[in-house]
């Protein structure tokens, strides 16, 4: 923080000069320019290291050694990459669905009047941690627990339940979904709690008073009021799962093709493909994430309408 102040130290001197020297002098102009220099520096930084790489990826995806081409985009249709996109979409949808249902029910349960307050606050702070606990450590925690050599796997086997024999594998899309649930459920809990709190007790009482059953209340009032928030939460969770890289990398070591791991394979030269293919894959991700963000914005705007 002190550095922030020191970096600005020319400003007060310039300001003082301006007061003594009157407007229009060189120091006064300088003083007025300083704020804009900060804004300009930020925008330049964004342009150089965020926008430029993004544009590079988008251009590279359609630009070959001999001018514009759709060859790399078409290459995404090849079995390997089509599978990666399909896997990524299925995994993200499944992980988002698990998060929405699990986190939604958990948030609902914790907001019931009968739920103890200490449990509610403990769960909320735990969720803040778990929603940010992902990547390599999460993968290893699940490997230690449910991997082929995991402690829980071994204990269950001792009890006569061979989960791998029953078809479960941590290193499959199902296993990934389960692992993702560890950060998706808490994230859902955090983002849906305000919307659930927005459901007023009066609506429930009024519906009951007018003769509605619990289901009629949820069907005609509760869910219609909640659905924009639920949709917004779903797409946010979808995007969160879609862009996850470290968790699947550490967990599957490339056994399952996903878009992020395929990009890293191209980048690190694990597969003999041109960098343009990596760009095409990345461009595909950007397109998906843009769509996700648009849906999120529309849904969030609709959700805000009830909260006036």
């Amino acid at each position: 923080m002190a550095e922030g102040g020191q970096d600005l130290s020319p400003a007060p001197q310039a300001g003082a000069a301006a007061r003594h020297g009157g407007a229009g002098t060189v120091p006064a102009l300088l003083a007025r320019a300083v704020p804009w220099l900060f804004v300009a520096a930020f925008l330049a930084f964004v342009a150089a290291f965020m926008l430029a790489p993004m544009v590079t990826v988008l251009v590279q995806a359609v630009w070959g050694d001999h001018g514009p081409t759709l060859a790399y985009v078409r290459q995404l249709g090849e079995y390997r990459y089509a599978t990666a996109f399909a896997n990524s979409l299925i995994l993200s949808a499944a992980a988002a669905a698990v998060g929405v249902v699990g986190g939604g029910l958990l948030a609902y349960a914790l907001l019931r009047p009968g739920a103890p307050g200490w449990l509610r606050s403990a769960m909320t702070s735990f969720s803040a941690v778990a929603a940010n606990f992902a990547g390599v450590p999460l993968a290893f925690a699940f490997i230690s627990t449910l991997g082929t050599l995991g402690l829980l796997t071994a204990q269950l086997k001792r009890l006569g339940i061979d989960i791998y024999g029953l078809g479960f594998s941590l290193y499959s899309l199902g296993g990934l979904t389960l692992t993702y649930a560890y950060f998706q459920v808490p994230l859902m809990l955090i983002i849906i709690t305000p919307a659930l709190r927005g459901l007023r007790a009066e609506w429930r009482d009024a519906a009951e008073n007018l003769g509605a059953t619990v289901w009629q209340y949820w069907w005609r009032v509760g869910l219609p009021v909640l659905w924009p928030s639920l949709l917004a939460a779903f797409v946010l969770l979808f995007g969160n799962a879609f862009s996850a890289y470290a968790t699947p990398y550490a967990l599957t070591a490339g056994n399952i093709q996903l878009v992020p791991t395929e990009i890293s394979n191209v980048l690190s030269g694990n597969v003999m493909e041109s960098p343009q293919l990596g760009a095409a894959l990345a461009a595909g991700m950007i397109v998906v994430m843009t769509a996700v963000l648009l849906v999120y914005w529309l849904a969030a705007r609709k959700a805000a309408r009830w909260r006036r």
Partner: protein
Amino acid sequence: MSARLGPVAVLAIVLGIVFFLTPLIVTFAFSLWEGGDRYGFAAYRSLVGDPDLWASLLLSLRLAAETMLLGMVLLVPSMIFVHLKAPGLKPLFEFIAALPFVVPAIALVAGLSALYTGPAWLIGTPNYLVIPYFFLALPYAYRAIDVGLSAIDVRTLTDAAHSLGAGWGQVFRLVLLPNLSTALLGATLLTLTIVMGEFTFASVLLFKTFAVYINDTGSSKVTEAAALSLLSFVITWAAMLGVLLTGRNTTDLGGTH
């Protein structure tokens, strides 16, 4: 309690607790495994003696500090100026804050490596990571600071300070930063959490940060990996606890994956 909660709610809470606690408890037990039926702290002892752990941990901490510093210089002043002088630019800033969501880490690293192949002083040292880390943390830091700015009347405070004779530097140092300290601390701790857990950039750009160290260790020594996972969880916990204690409803605790 259960009678008033209803069976669905009780089931949801019980399943939730089991699901959240099982991996932590089992991972802890696993980290104590010394082969066969022997349990102890061998994994932890071997980790403490590994200089690579300390080097990677220090590197990650240093990068986190540098990222925070960059945020303080690049993000905080321009956000305050936009808030004060150019509210018309706010939609642009909102858009920029959403960009890291649209361009996932792995896509950004693809773009960065395609675009920048030099100079060596920039891309050859781990400090290069500070650039992508800044963008990783941007949405969360932006949200935290934006909430902080909306909570205080920046314009009146600034006008009052100016009328009392303060220059911009003094306004920042004596008025705005102290009043924004909660928001800034929240943004700082979120940045710390994000940088300490970040794997994508470091792994692709081949720098040995804490998360990369965990991955490298895990491929050969499983119990050490379990111990490191718990250590990482504790670090996240400590930072988030800090955010919750200082920020109290003022920061967005989103995930970062």
